[in-house]
């Protein structure tokens, strides 16, 4: 964890004491500090550009809810369904996450009104904070609730992704919950602990090429005000950040630091991966396995030829749906976690590893992230690309009321992407499996083993998963 209240050792840092090695300013190896680029510095330093983008996304969000609730009931002709589940969902997985980690969180409209209420102002915080500002219960910390939220989406996905009313109510519920939680709890409790998309983006942000980090740890440790922590709406303390999973890239710490000691770094892909874990918490490992299982399940339901499976996922409350729900939960909550645990346990036995199994699971689960991210992107090629032509139709007629705003003809046909999609999907999965195997091999030896025996059981897990995924997508 990277929150100040969770980082006991931070309290023990005395002014003037040394924390780590003092690195030379602005020359962190393999990093390019984008904040040093003058035009980008100016763009990030002012709150206005970000505010304008967030205001636009907020307007778009409210409009989306309106079209969901009052527009056409036919999903493929409804602005909300197409813009949320085809356009935005694709952009998130193919753009924001792989190139910017949690960058979507920096412009997400959902917590915006809550931020304003909490701060008592729009651009500048007022002295008087509103709301109860309670701490989030310690027992509910971590990504357990986000994982559960994602499972819930998966259980009802066939309806949520195709029924405009359901999409509208889900968006409205998330919006209301975010506002309500901002009035009860401090910081962005909704984003940190509830939002399933936050969990999804956060876990894969570890492999992304962007990070906010302290430039010189010594300067930071000596600084008594901790203005970065005071400014962070997420309640993070940058000096204590071990990875990028919790940072929403809002840039408030960069703006607040009087020492100009924070950097927005461009870094090599996967910089947070392949390192021994700093805790033995299983929540992120579980989330990583759920993401892996969900990509598999969604590929089967939405891109497979099995109509009975689609109908089962769609007919909520029926016996067929109960069977689907049981299968989905067993796959994600029991089968994959049990199989992965068995693989790690086997390796522990084979390599005579002295580390506790729990710690090994947390460590080895890092290898699941590249494969999971690439599996999601590969699935999206099949899921969303054939439907991208529907975007023009709903921009032309957002409510399905017969408007012709763009004078464009609408189509309900799927685009033929067979010329490139099977090759692109396989290429993406190859990148994922190569990357995951590399991370797993890197971790071998750093987990308490005295030999460098390759983790064959976990590598076999990747192999089987990838083959199933390839079969689902191009078979």
């Amino acid at each position, binding site marked *: 964890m990277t929150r100040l209240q969770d980082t006991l050792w931070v309290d023990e840092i005395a002014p003037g004491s040394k924390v780590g090695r003092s690195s030379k300013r602005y020359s962190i190896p393999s990093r390019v500090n984008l904040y040093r680029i003058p035009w980008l510095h100016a763009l990030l330093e002012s709150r206005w550009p970000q505010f304008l983008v967030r205001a636009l996304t907020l307007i778009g969000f409210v409009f989306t809810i309106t079209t969901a609730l009052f527009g056409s009931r*036919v*999903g*493929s*002709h409804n602005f909300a369904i197409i813009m949320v589940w085809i356009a935005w969902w694709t952009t998130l997985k193919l753009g924001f996450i792989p190139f910017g980690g949690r960058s979507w969180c920096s412009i997400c409209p959902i917590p915006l009104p809550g931020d304003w209420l909490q701060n008592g102002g729009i651009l500048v915080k007022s002295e008087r904070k509103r709301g109860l500002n309670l701490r989030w219960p310690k027992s509910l910390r971590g990504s357990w609730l986000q994982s559960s939220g994602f499972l819930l989406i998966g259980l009802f996905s*066939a*309806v949520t992704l*195709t*029924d405009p009313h359901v999409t509208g109510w889900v968006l409205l519920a998330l919006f209301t919950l975010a506002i309500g939680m901002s009035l009860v709890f401090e910081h962005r409790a909704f984003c940190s602990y509830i939002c399933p998309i936050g969990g999804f983006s956060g876990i894969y942000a570890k492999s992304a090429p962007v990070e906010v980090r302290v430039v010189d740890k010594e300067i930071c440790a000596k600084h008594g005000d901790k203005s970065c922590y005071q400014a962070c709406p997420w309640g993070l303390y940058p000096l204590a950040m071990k990875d990028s999973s919790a940072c929403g890239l809002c840039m408030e710490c960069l703006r607040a630091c009087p020492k100009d000691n924070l950097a927005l770094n461009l870094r090599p892909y996967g910089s947070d991966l*392949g390192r021994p874990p700093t805790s033995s918490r299983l929540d992120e490992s579980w989330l990583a396995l759920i993401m892996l299982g969900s990509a598999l399940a969604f590929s089967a*339901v*939405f*891109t*497979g*030829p*099995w*109509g*009975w499976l*689609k*109908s089962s996922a*769609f007919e909520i409350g029926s016996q067929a749906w109960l069977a689907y729900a049981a299968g989905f939960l067993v796959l994600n909550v029991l089968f994959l976690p049990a199989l992965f645990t068995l693989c790690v346990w086997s390796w522990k036995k084979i390599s005579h590893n002295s580390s506790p199994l729990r710690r090994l699971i947390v460590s080895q689960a890092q290898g699941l992230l590249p494969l999971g991210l690439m599996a999601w992107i590969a699935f999206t090629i099949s899921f969303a690309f*054939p*439907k991208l032509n*529907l975007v023009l139709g709903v921009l032309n007629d957002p409510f399905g009321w017969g408007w012709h705003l763009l004078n464009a003809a609408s189509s*309900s*046909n*799927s685009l*033929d*992407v*067979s*010329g490139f999609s*099977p*090759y692109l999907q*396989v290429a993406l*999965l*190859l*990148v994922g*499996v*190569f*990357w*995951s*195997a*590399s*991370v*797993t*091999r*890197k971790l*071998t*030896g750093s987990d308490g083993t005295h030999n*460098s025996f*390759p983790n064959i059981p976990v*590598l076999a897990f*990747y*192999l089987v998963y*990838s*083959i199933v995924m*390839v*079969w689902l997508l*191009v*078979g």
Partner: protein
Amino acid sequence: MKDQNLQPQNSIRGWHWAILAALVLVVLLVPIPAGATAPTERTLHIEASRFEYNPAILKVNPGDKVTIELVATDVVHGLSIDGYNLEAIADPGKTARITFIANRQGSFRFHCTTTCGNLHPFMIGKLEVGRNTWLLRAIGLVGMALFAGAWKGRK
């Protein structure tokens, strides 16, 4: 001194990757038997109901002259096959036919082309023309990527 020590190691590493690249080319280019018999004429009868084709997986041989008879059992449904630029639309209770030569080998999805309900965009079937050689090659490549990743990550 340091550079001299590194040079042979780098060249060995270079050879490893060159061998891997050669193996990748072999997996991509090695001829795989199509596993097909002589082309023939086939008529395939498909029932389309909401979000489902029955049968949903069609298997033909390369070169077959295929006629698809599409029957819509509830509402209007369509059928368009990726890679073949064909479309049939069937009214409820009626049969629509398309005939084509299955001259492209591999696995192709077909979709409903007429909005038929919420899951219409996901009403999908599959046409398999001969052996799906890309799937076999892809599985081979996955194995090689796994090995290469493990090789690269070693200490």
